[in-house]
């Protein structure tokens, strides 16, 4: 099937099979930040944005993205680097495997909730599993990132 979508701002046309996952499609297009972690819709590693909303690309058919806008970490490099610096400052990226999906969801959260409470942060990010950090470093990084944004330092 022919699909046409906007991937990180560029128009992308491709022939895909009916059962191809969006995850596999974007990886074929060179977006290697999007990875398959659990393959059971649980870990959040394959998070990307579909029309600006975070979704699990392992659970979306590529054909369903036809005519829509897809954004991966490769399309948000400046923002990702900015938040990534806070993550590394807090030692919150031990192995780093979960970071792409985590960063995508944090950036989606900031877009939707400019000043989230601690509870809102934890609820929003509940679908991103990290097996190294224990999450405390990540929460510190988010709080400092949000504070820096509010103070106009970013």
């Amino acid at each position, binding site marked *: *099937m022919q699909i046409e979508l906007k991937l990180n701002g560029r128009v992308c046309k491709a022939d895909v099979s*009916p059962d191809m996952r969006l995850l596999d499609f974007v990886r074929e297009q060179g977006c290697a930040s999007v990875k398959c972690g659990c393959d059971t*819709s*649980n870990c*959040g590693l394959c998070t990307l944005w579909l029309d600006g909303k*975070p979704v*699990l690309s392992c*659970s979306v058919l590529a054909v369903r993205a036809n005519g829509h806008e897809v954004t991966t970490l490769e399309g948000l490099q400046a923002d990702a680097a900015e938040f990534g610096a806070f993550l590394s400052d807090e030692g919150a990226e031990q192995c780093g495997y979960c970071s792409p999906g985590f960063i995508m969801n944090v950036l989606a959260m900031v877009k939707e909730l400019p000043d989230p409470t601690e509870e809102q942060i934890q609820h929003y990010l*509940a*679908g991103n599993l990290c097996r190294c950090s224990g999450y405390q470093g990540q929460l510190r990084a988010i709080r400092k990132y949000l504070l820096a944004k509010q103070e106009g330092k970013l």
Partner: protein
Amino acid sequence: MFRAKQYLLAQSLEEAYAANQKRTATVVGGMCWLKMSNRQIQTLIDLSALGLDTITRTDEGFSIGAMVTLRQLETDAVLNETFQNAFADAVRPIVGVQFRNCATIGGSVWGRFGFSDVIAVLLALKAKVELYPTGVVELDDFLQMPYDNQILVRILVPFTAKKAAVQSHRNTATDFPVLVAVASELADGSLRLVAGARPQKAALVNTTLTAQSSAEEIEQQLENGLQQMAFCSNMRGSAEYRRHLAKVLLKRAIAQLKEGTANAD
């Protein structure tokens, strides 16, 4: 992951229904559960183009399209204001935001899954299901129906219930629930109590409780009602534990109802 040979973006309910008459065809909802299967599917039927992704308030209640995501249920201000955040409380523990942006109410209801938090809330709110071509059926009846080749179009939530409260317990955050308990207060003051994830599908608890029932009556009737109800054991909890949890969570839900504010309707 399933394999599929064809993809049909249905342009009408008639087209979707006609395509779904073959046993090898499958309607794809949010795909979160379907992707876990290893089936060989001839035709995947997608309802995305049918405008079934909206929540509409009507004079009788809410009309929720089958393709509405769990995240929409969670964030719809009018729906949640009407039912004291019952929908948000029910779906918020389900995995994460990204998952809930994919999973649909149609998929949850059609699956008639025992673990479904959504079905428990809908049952407490006396929801109905609109099927094509049969028409509207009560959710209670739909839950007993065998899987057939109809198309689930929308869920209708009447203003029958004035208030609703949801309680659930999970062994770990984002896991399937060990038990879901929902209480709603109907316009005549009677309470409608539902226990879900028993782990069988959600069902009504047989009581005659009202909003004015005393703590002793609640204790006694819950004890009797839950003794009549079947609970089973699995890796998440024993039948005995679930029956005990159901009583505790339903009491909390009833207390939450009493503290909450009434539906404006």
